[in-house]
Each structure stands twice: as structure tokens, then as C-alpha cells.
């Protein structure tokens, strides 16, 4: 009976953590939609949504109610099961990413040390890559199952864009991994807690990673899959009600998750800047972990603002510009970055001090 030797408390602990993190990401995503509208408004000299609740704070709830109460249409010619599967897949893939992100240090509760990370997989980064690529399937299946040429075209674009930019993203990440020597996100963050943040070692790599993250999340200037003026509405043309909501939501959750990944890999994750975290732990215990969660969330919010700021500044790229940028600029730059990083590491290993 190996089943009974399982650490049941660990199971419960992880389940609670999963529920909390998923609910929290959903809640943050809800308010990211609000933030998007507010940021857009402020950058365009408008006050933005302000009617629902104080300062318009209940706007996302109103939007949610609207989404739920709309008629849910499945087109006659659509492939029914795939049509339903599409948004579900997009949502699942984007939510699955949060499993390996370290949201904070360790909390001590009931004499147990609880890591604020659902699973410290030793190939965390690769897991994220795999899952994020699955998200594209959601878009592709949705676009194909709609049986609509615009949706199909949009999903083709989404797929080609994802492939082109994932390449540069992976190459820029390899350079970081050469510095950190580990694929585990938890380990990467722990290294940055004691030393410098990885952004110091990899500024170019971060830039490339950031641009590719924009492309992966289908954010402007890379939102070609939903180019309204060319494709009516893009891959979610035929979708309505909460299925459409799922697609839009998945985009925002993707944004949060890629922000969290960028914060973890390049900006020290939950590391409190300018402070020795071990000292904080020694003095205030569990509160330190909560502060760390807050710090990570602050970094995530900063990145989300950056995403939005870019969205409301630049227009969409043309398709050829997109491909040129991806293949002729990003990939060579990433390769260059990788070569330089490798050379420096090699020099250092041969006792060159700098």
C-alpha cells in the first residue's frame, strides 16, 4: 500500500495553494482588463470607465455579467467540439503556467515549511515554454473550428508568429541559463537573492525576451491575429458570450504570467530590492514571505503597465515587418547575445578576472 505512505498534508497544502493562486490570477486578470481601459484612457487624456462603483472599480464585474448573459452562439458550419475546446484550451494553457512560478519564499504554518510555489520542477523554464506553446493551439483550434476564412487566416498568423518569436525567445533564454546553470525557476530566483539580478548580466537578452513575450501574448504591436481592419475580428470572430470572454481572459492571464516569468528570471522574482531577505526573515518571519509576494506582484504590475503603455503607444506591425523583425533582427541579436555570454563565461572559467 504505497498510496497510504503519501504525505496527505502536503497534498492538501498544495491543493490550497493551487486554488489560491488560480483564484488570485483570475482576480488579477479581471482587474487587468480594468487597468487596460484605465491606462488607455489616461494615455489618451480621458478619465476612463468611472460609472460602475467608486472610480469605476466594479467595471470588470459588470463586464463579466455582460459576458455571461450574452447569447452563446455556435455557428452551424462550425466544428462543434473543437469550437468549444478552443477557448478552454487557451484558458487552461495560460493558467497552467502559474504552477512553476515561485510566488514567494517559505511560510511556516503549523510547524510545516510551505513553499509558495506549487511545484519546483527542475525544468521549470522548459515547462513554461511547453505550456505557453500549447496556448497557441487554443487560438489555432478556435480559428479553424469557426469555419471562417478570416478566423483561419488569423490563426495561421498566430501560429507563424508564435513559431518565429519562440525561437528568439528560447535563444535569449539560453544565455540566461548559461549564467544561472539551472532550469529551475525557484533556483534562479534564489541565486538572484544573494547576487545581482540577472538583468545586470543580460540586458540585451532581457530586451529580446521582452519583445518576444509581447509577441507571444499577441499584444500590440504584435497583435496581428486580431487585426480588426484586416481580419474583422481575428480568430475569435465567431465567438460570443463567455467563450469570447475566455479568449480575452486567456490573453490577460498570459500577460500576467509572462510578466511573472520575466520578473522571476531577470528581476529577482520575489527578492526584495536593496534588502537582505534572510535578515528580514529572521526579524519578522512569515510576514517577510508576504512582503515578498507583494514585491513580486509589484514587479508584475510594473511589467503589465509597460505592456499597456506600449500597446497604447505604437500601432500594429505589418506582417512582413513582423517577420523581418523576428527572423532578421531578433534571432541574430539573440545569437550574438548568446555568443558573447558564452565567451565571457569561458574567459571567466579560465581565470580571467573582470
Amino acid at each position, binding site marked *: 500500500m504505497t498510496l497510504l505512505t503519501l504525505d496527505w498534508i502536503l497534498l492538501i497544502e498544495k491543493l490550497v495553494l493551487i486554488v489560491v493562486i488560480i483564484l488570485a490570477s483570475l482576480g488579477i486578470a479581471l482587474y487587468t482588463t480594468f487597468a487596460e481601459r484605465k491606462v488607455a484612457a489616461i494615455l489618451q*487624456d*480621458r478619465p476612463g470607465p468611472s460609472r460602475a462603483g467608486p472610480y469605476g472599480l466594479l467595471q470588470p464585474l459588470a463586464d463579466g455579467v455582460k459576458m455571461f448573459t450574452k447569447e452563446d452562439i455556435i455557428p452551424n458550419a462550425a466544428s462543434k467540439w473543437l469550437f468549444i475546446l478552443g477557448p478552454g484550451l487557451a484558458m487552461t494553457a495560460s493558467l497552467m503556467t502559474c504552477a512553476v512560478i515561485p510566488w514567494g519564499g517559505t511560510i511556516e504554518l503549523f510547524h510545516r515549511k510551505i513553499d509558495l510555489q506549487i511545484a519546483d520542477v527542475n525544468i521549470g523554464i522548459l515547462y513554461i515554454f511547453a505550456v505557453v506553446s500549447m496556448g497557441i493551439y487554443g487560438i489555432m483550434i478556435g480559428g479553424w473550428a469557426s469555419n471562417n476564412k478570416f478566423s483561419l487566416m488569423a490563426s495561421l498568423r498566430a501560429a507563424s508568429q508564435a513559431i518565429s518569436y519562440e525561437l528568439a525567445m528560447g535563444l535569449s533564454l539560453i544565455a540566461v541559463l548559461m549564467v544561472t546553470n539551472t532550469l529551475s525557476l525557484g533556483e534562479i530566483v534564489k541565486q538572484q537573492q544573494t547576487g545581482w539580478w540577472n538583468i545586470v548580466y543580460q540586458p540585451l537578452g532581457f*530586451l529580446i525576451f521582452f519583445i518576444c513575450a509581447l509577441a507571444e501574448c499577441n499584444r500590440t504591436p504584435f497583435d496581428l491575429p486580431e487585426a480588426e481592419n484586416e481580419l474583422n475580428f481575428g480568430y475569435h470572430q465567431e465567438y460570443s458570450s463567455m467563450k469570447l470572454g475566455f479568449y480575452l481572459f486567456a490573453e490577460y492571464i498570459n500577460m500576467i504570467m509572462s510578466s511573472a516569468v520575466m520578473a522571476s528570471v531577470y528581476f529577482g522574482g520575489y527578492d526584495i530590492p536593496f534588502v537582505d531577505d534572510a535578515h528580514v526573515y529572521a526579524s519578522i518571519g512569515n510576514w517577510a514571505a508576504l512582503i515578498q509576494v507583494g514585491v513580486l506582484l509589484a514587479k508584475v504590475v510594473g511589467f503589465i503597465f509597460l505592456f499597456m503603455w506600449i500597446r497604447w503607444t505604437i500601432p500594429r506591425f505589418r506582417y512582413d515587418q513582423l517577420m523581418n523583425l523576428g527572423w532578421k533582427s531578433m534571432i541574430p541579436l539573440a545569437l550574438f547575445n548568446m555568443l558573447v555570454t558564452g565567451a565571457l563565461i569561458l574567459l571567466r572559467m579560465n581565470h580571467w578576472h573582470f
Partner: protein
Amino acid sequence: MQTFQKMQALTNRAKAVDRKPMTFLERIYLWNILKGMLITFSHIFKKKPTIRFPEQTRTFSPVFRGLHVLNRDEEGRERCTACGLCAVACPAEAITMEAAERLPGEENLYREEKYAARYEINMLRCIFCGLCEEACPKDAIYLSETFTPTNFTRESFIYGKDNLLIPNPKTEAADLAKAKGM
């Protein structure tokens, strides 16, 4: 075959368009995107020109032409004598009325011997030109500063005397003050 000669430039303002192929740094757009982002960032601190409508309203000039009112004199008598000049002047034919004769004992209600028993303006037809106001010999019709009535039926936009008459300054002084926004 005739060859066209380049015309001589009359001013020195024309600039040749630079059609050099973009360099690598230009092709990754970073610098230009950064410039654009600084512009949008500066807009965060700009004053928002929005007027939050139902709570705040734009201040109008005194000659603003909004919804009509039918005036009363100081003693609270209706000024309109149903001459029909406003209806004639109206280019949109939005005004109609029925006249009636003042009976003995109604002198405190109507100023003249003849008055408008019914007076209707179709606000959907009205173009708020103010010609009725100009045509009126009795100072009976005025365009106020009120605007944007909304409703669900077309019939409700035909304003009768009950909608148009201002409150009686004698008996409903408080209402009148409120309507004037005082």
C-alpha cells in the same frame, strides 16, 4: 520625344525625401518606439478636458437655444395669445396650437382676450433655430438653456402646455427659482 525639364523651385522650402534603406538599428525600431512612449507618458500628466456630463454640465452662453418655455407675466398670466406667428415662422413646422376665447373670470389666467387652449411643439421636428422666439410679438415663447430630453416613445416628444409653461411666479415661486437654476 520631348524631355521635360525640371522646374525651377520658387522657394527653398521643399525638402528631398530621404529614401535610404534603414540601418539595423532603425530596423529594430527601438529608438523610435522609445520616443513615442515618452510622448504617451507625458500625456499621463496632462489635464483631462472631459466634462463628466450628468454631474457637470458645460456652461452655455446666454443666447444658447435649448428647449422652449411658454412665458407668463409678473402676475402669473399666460402671455401667449395664440396668434400663430411662431407656427408660421417655424421652418420645421414643429409648432401647432388651438386658440380659445377668454371667458369672464379668467382674467387672472390669461393676459389677452384670446389664448392658446392647446399649444404643441414636436421636439423631434424642431431645429432649435429660435425663429419662433423672434416672431413672437407678446414675448411668450423663449428658448431656454435646457437640452437633451430623452425618452422611449416618439409621442412623448410632442410637448404640450403642461411641459412648456413656466411655473407661476405668484403661486409656485419656489419651482420657478429652481427651474431658473437659482
